[in-house]
């Protein structure tokens, strides 16, 4: 669904992403791993059009999206989560989520001033989407709590819910389980599987190998901005270049 051709991004003299070509496969969990500073986050930033690539193209469903704005690709169906999600602490979780579906609505100022039926309908849809998303991530019980009062792990899930309420086709998850303990990591992994079952493609950056190995359908390995390997978890686990650059010897058997 997402095709990346010879993608390069330079910061000054440093090539954070260097001539990477790959595809993100529809309906699968695509993982990206690599040493620190390999360019994974930058890679995501390029896909979601936060940064403009120095060269190369990105094609989403056959459409060249390389020079679009972030909000435009989001409307095409690319959603992402952030490592830390800023919520408006003084309103409720549900209120925070309603805006998530805004990109699928069309009401403008005129609808607002007229109080048009389209606006009312769309507001209802947004609210429904928000509830659905909360349900989906298993947080309906905190819908009416103030966003400032929920726990870190709940915040992570709210971030998922926000991304889900945009009706995405591809979700980019940057270290979703960073700082999450194994039990809850398992919960998040289950959530990710559920997302994929619902027909949403996932691209995932993570350093937790257990999680990656059990979750990913396909792994892309970056090192110093370059693609050094790509394949199934089994292949990656045994790839000497990856062991050398990233996993270290003992992970090969874990």
């Amino acid at each position: 669904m997402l095709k990346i051709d010879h993608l390069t991004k330079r910061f000054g003299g440093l090539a954070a992403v260097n001539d990477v070509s790959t595809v993100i496969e529809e309906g699968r969990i695509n993982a990206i791993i690599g040493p620190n500073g390999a360019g994974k986050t930058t890679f995501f930033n390029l896909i979601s059009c936060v940064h403009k690539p120095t060269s190369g193209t990105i094609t989403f469903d056959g459409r060249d999206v390389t020079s679009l704005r972030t909000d435009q690709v989001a409307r095409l169906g690319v959603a992402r989560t952030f490592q830390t999600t800023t919520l408006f602490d003084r309103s409720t979780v549900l209120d925070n989520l309603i805006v998530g579906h805004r990109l699928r609505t069309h009401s403008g100022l005129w609808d607002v001033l007229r109080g048009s039926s389209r606006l009312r309908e769309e507001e209802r849809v947004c609210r429904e989407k928000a509830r659905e998303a909360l349900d989906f991530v298993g947080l309906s019980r905190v819908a009416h709590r103030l966003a400032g009062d929920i726990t870190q792990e709940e915040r992570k899930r709210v971030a998922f819910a926000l991304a889900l309420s945009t009706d995405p086709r591809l979700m980019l998850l940057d270290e979703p389980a960073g700082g999450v303990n194994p039990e809850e990591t398992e919960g998040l992994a289950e959530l990710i599987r559920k997302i994929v079952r619902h027909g949403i493609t996932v691209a995932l950056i993570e350093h937790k190998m257990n999680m990656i190995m059990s979750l990913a359908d396909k792994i892309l390995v970056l090192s110093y901005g370059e693609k050094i390997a790509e394949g199934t978890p089994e292949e990656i686990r045994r790839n000497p270049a990856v062991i050398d650059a990233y996993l270290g010897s003992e992970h090969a058997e874990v």
Partner: protein
Amino acid sequence: MLKFDDVSLKYGSFLALDRVSLHAGKGELVVLLGANGAGKSSLFLTASGIHRAAGGSITWEGRELVGSKPSAIVQAGVVQCPEGRKLFPQMSVRKNLELGAYVHRRDPGPSRQTLEEVLELFPILREKQHDPAGSLSGGQQQMVAIGRAMMGRPRVLLLDEPSLGLAPLVIKQMFEVIQRINQAGTTVLLAEQNAYAALRIAHRAYVLESGRIVREGLPGELLADDSIRRAYIGA
């Protein structure tokens, strides 16, 4: 000895730490396990004087830390590598590290040597030493944070999830480093999600849940405990 006695902490009306008591003997490496939001970081920030305990006392070699200024606590040798790194993003990596030795500013000789050790340990930092710390990748920044704490030449090192965001290979090296630091005589209190690796180098461990200590024991005992294995180590 670093000793927590009935330490409580409140955020507004929320009780984040509820009469926590624990200790780390001189030269000991103690691990603190706990789910997200259990209160590990809160405990560390209280020890460093960033938050003020609502009750109880924290002593280091008999000296009361509750009520002391953060700077005085660092001066006394209790240094933290905080969660979220808290670097100086626009300063160069080198300057960040040098400021880690702020409390030793009157005696710069040994600091230069520690700096060398840190750069040895994380070679990528030597490469990037003149870049602003904020431009580094997440994991590289974590290395700077650990290095900065080491620069304080701590007698007690509080490490709050140091492996966060690090590649497996680097994590492995890092645990080796922690062990080495500890073996050189530094008391280490380590909060970790990566329970398996942490317990392998620990002398003793505590389990924190919802602001309370629910379990204490030797690494072997905890590793053998099924419920602990399930919660903190994974299947």
